[in-house]
């Protein structure tokens, strides 16, 4: 990155190379944008912004003092330290230059959305190499449906503090992970989803890599992820992009955001919508096309969160919210199915004699 290190960075300006500055989650969103996917617009509050916050409030020394007193395996001590740090963070002011950058970023989102105080998701974006472990360590706080500058700033501060939850502290202390490597935060416009869910670039049932399986339900994806609703399932042939199977389930409930805090409330789905597919065929196919493209770019199977925006026209209504490596099937060792292949004839013989087949 040229020039001075910025306090905030638009998603469109980051990729995996900016990971140390914006964290893994935001970096991968930037990467999705670079590969031509639609991602809800947003910006990162960089780890540099976080450090400026610490410096301006003289928090670094105080942090060290608190942490020095922590007994790694003593829960009570961890909790006490966590509370102290959270208190310190929430009392501290965000320095004007950082606050200004965040306000400008939020204003830009407002202009793009043509909406005053657009709802955003504010989430921490871990800098650690292994974001899965980071997730375990509780460093991935998320605040959804946040509206207004004050609330955004407050959520950013809370995300910074979330690096010091008892669990995160324990993890960092026991794993010997540096305590001052910083925290990045993503501020991203919320999509008003008509439907949302997840997709895998292989069959979760059998690991078949020639399929893409899309699961979705009405409203935000939490319905699918949390297992509150049996989602619709669309199976797409990855090679031909034909939908080979549709399983439409009765989707009896969905979540809707309420009030300015954006709490999600579960409500019943109108009866006529319950058994209606939550995605059109063209939406399913377009999602599959995007997923296939990303998998080719990344070179490994993916697990992707997606949403279809309520009031936008196809294909501009399709958004990817997150992309991760698929872990269940991909972790299995690659085995050759034709390890004993000599020539077609002997393979024919083996198959017919039942030897080539494990089943």
């Amino acid at each position, binding site marked *: 990155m040229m020039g001075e290190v910025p306090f905030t960075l638009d998603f469109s300006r980051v990729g995996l190379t900016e990971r140390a500055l914006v964290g893994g989650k935001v970096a991968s969103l930037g990467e999705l944008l670079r590969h031509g996917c639609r991602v809800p617009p947003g910006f990162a509050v960089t780890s540099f912004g976080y450090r400026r916050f610490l410096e301006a409030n003289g928090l670094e020394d105080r942090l060290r003092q608190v942490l020095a007193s922590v007994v790694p395996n003593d829960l009570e001590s961890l909790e006490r330290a966590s509370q102290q740090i959270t208190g310190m963070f929430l009392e501290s002011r965000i320095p004007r230059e950082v606050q200004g950058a965040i306000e400008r970023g939020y204003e830009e989102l407002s202009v793009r959305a043509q909406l005053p105080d657009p709802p955003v998701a504010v989430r921490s974006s871990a800098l650690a190499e292994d974001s899965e472990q980071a997730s375990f360590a509780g460093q991935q706080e998320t605040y959804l449906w946040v509206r207004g500058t004050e609330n955004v700033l407050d959520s950013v501060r809370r995300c910074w503090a979330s690096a010091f939850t008892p669990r995160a502290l324990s993890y960092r202390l026991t794993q010997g992970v540096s305590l001052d490597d910083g925290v990045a935060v993503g501020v991203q416009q919320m999509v008003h989803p008509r439907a949302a869910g997840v997709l895998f670039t292989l069959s979760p049932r059998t690991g078949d890599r020639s399929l893409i399986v899309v699961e979705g339900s009405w409203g935000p994806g939490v319905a699918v992820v949390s297992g509150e609703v049996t989602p619709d399932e669309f199976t797409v042939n990855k090679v031909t992009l034909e939908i080979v199977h549709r399983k439409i389930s009765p989707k009896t409930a969905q979540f809707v955001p309420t009030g300015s805090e954006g709490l999600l409330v579960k409500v019943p789905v109108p009866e006529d919508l319950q058994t209606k597919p939550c995605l059109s065929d063209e939406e399913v196919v377009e999602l599959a096309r995007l997923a296939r493209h990303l998998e080719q770019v990344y070179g490994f199977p993916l697990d992707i969160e997606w949403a279809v925006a309520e009031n936008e026209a196809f294909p501009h209504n399709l958004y990817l919210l997150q992309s991760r490596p698929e872990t269940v099937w991909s972790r299995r060792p690659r085995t050759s199915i034709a390890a004993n292949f000599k020539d077609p004839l002997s393979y024919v013989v083996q198959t017919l*004699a039942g030897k080539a087949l494990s089943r």
Partner: protein
Amino acid sequence: MMSDALRFQSPFEVQTPPGCEGWTEMYPYYLLFSEDRRQEEENKLWFYNGMHAPEAVHPFDTIGFEAGYLGIGEMSSRMFCIPPALGIDFRFLNGRLYISPTAVGDPKKIEERAKLFERRAGYYFQNWPQFYEEWREKVKREIEQLKAIRFPELPEVEDEQLVFERKGYGTSQEVFEAYHRLLESIFRIWQIHMEIVMIGFAAYFTFYEFCKKAFPEISDQAITRMVGAIDVSMFRPNDELKRLAKRAVELGVDSYFRPEANVRETFEALGRSEAGRAWLEEWRRSSDPWFYMNTGDGFHHHHRAWVDDPGAVFGILCDYVAKVKRGESLERDIEGRRRDRDQITEGYRALLQTEEDRKAFDELLGLVRNVYYSIEDHKFYVEHWYQSVFWNKVRELGALFVRQGFFQDVEDIFYLHWSEVHQALMDLLLSWTIGAPARGPVYWPPIIARRRELMGKLRAWNPPPALGTVPEAVVDPAVVMLWGITPDRLRAWLEPEKAEEKVLRGFAASPGVVEGPARVVLSVDQLHEVQEGEILVCSVTEPSWAPVFSRIRATVSDIGGMMSHAAIVAREYGIPAVLGTGSATKRIRTGQRIRVDGDAGTVTLLED
């Protein structure tokens, strides 16, 4: 174990339709279910082979099946020694053909057979394109020899020439030998037919299993699209019809082609003008051999060839003429299909995980594409060209019997089994040589009359898709690939009441989703009833029905697997197909609106 096995109705529990008592006397003893083999027969699976015998089988027509299953047995079990499979057993029940694959149970025997198979089939696989080319020539020679068989008129006295040539034998011997040659010919052609087909299925089955291992949920359809033969002889007859439609417009005789017109009168009318005669000359050119295409699969004598009964395709020809006049293209998109095949193949290949797998994929596919081409292409030569000539040859013999007062009609001969024809012929020749009356003219007519009545009644019987005991595994490659018989499919047939009430499941044989009114066709003579925009529902879709595919929006069948030609034709015409539903013709009625999902392999009944 036996008591746990899933069972269909026993063949011994199947009722004789009212008025059909005594139907068994139409078939030889060895082709009937019988008390003395009951236990063995009940413990086997028998499935209805509606693919090759969509109707009750006339006594004479059993010859095609006897020759066919002799050929299968010879090639699979004795010649090439397909490791897990012996031949396919068969029986007639209420006139319908039921077949049962015979497996090799003993692992040691499978092992021994594998060694023989490797050496024997390997010889063919390694030389396949050349051998197939030679095979085609061999079949053409057989057809020439078949055509040369003559049943000479029995004269009052022999021609003098016979005496002076000192041949030493007369016309009675010639007729006798001609019948033997006819029998020898059909039994030989069906061995030759199976010479390439059985090991062809074995190779194809291997690629299928490889794909299923690499991509556990891959559809059968995706596999066939990778190996699909692009331009085989089975499409040529239809292409010739299109050519003739274009010629009709070019020659300015298109106004003759009105679908409501009688085909014979139309041809006569064409013969009265120069342009019309030019067109008829073109028809004759196309006819030999391309219109030896019959309307079935060659096993029923009354599925006439187009050359004998142009009425079968006249309606389609008229459609084509109308399309040419409207400026519509009749061309099949061969290049597009080739591109589609290459893209799909490349797509799956790229998804394989290791270099080794890609090597196996490439080499198996190379073999299978060669083999599969023959499996698609061979059909025209034997099932159509040869069989059409054969049935007409039988008619020539039938005509001799008519002249000698045995039968009233040439077609009566088909009510006798070929071994009975043998007896009748001896009766006839004895009587002619001796100069004393034959018994045949009084013996056969009442039998034929009764059998004609029986065939009419048996026709209405709707055969259950399977009988007997479901096996743990189906190991015969041909049975899996051609008929689509797998333990899963059999279980689905067994539990129709558990299945969703309004949904039938089958093989997703050709992609696409359409809705429309159904047209249930139970036999080939109902084919002309099919209207533009309907969905064809039939026991089995014959590949030779290809022309009707230009009218329909989708097709659904009771029987048919991924290798069935109907699937290929449906894809060729780009219409959805769901095959092997087991019961479509029973559960769907003409006019009922249905939805055919050729991607998912489902048929939904949209109306009660």
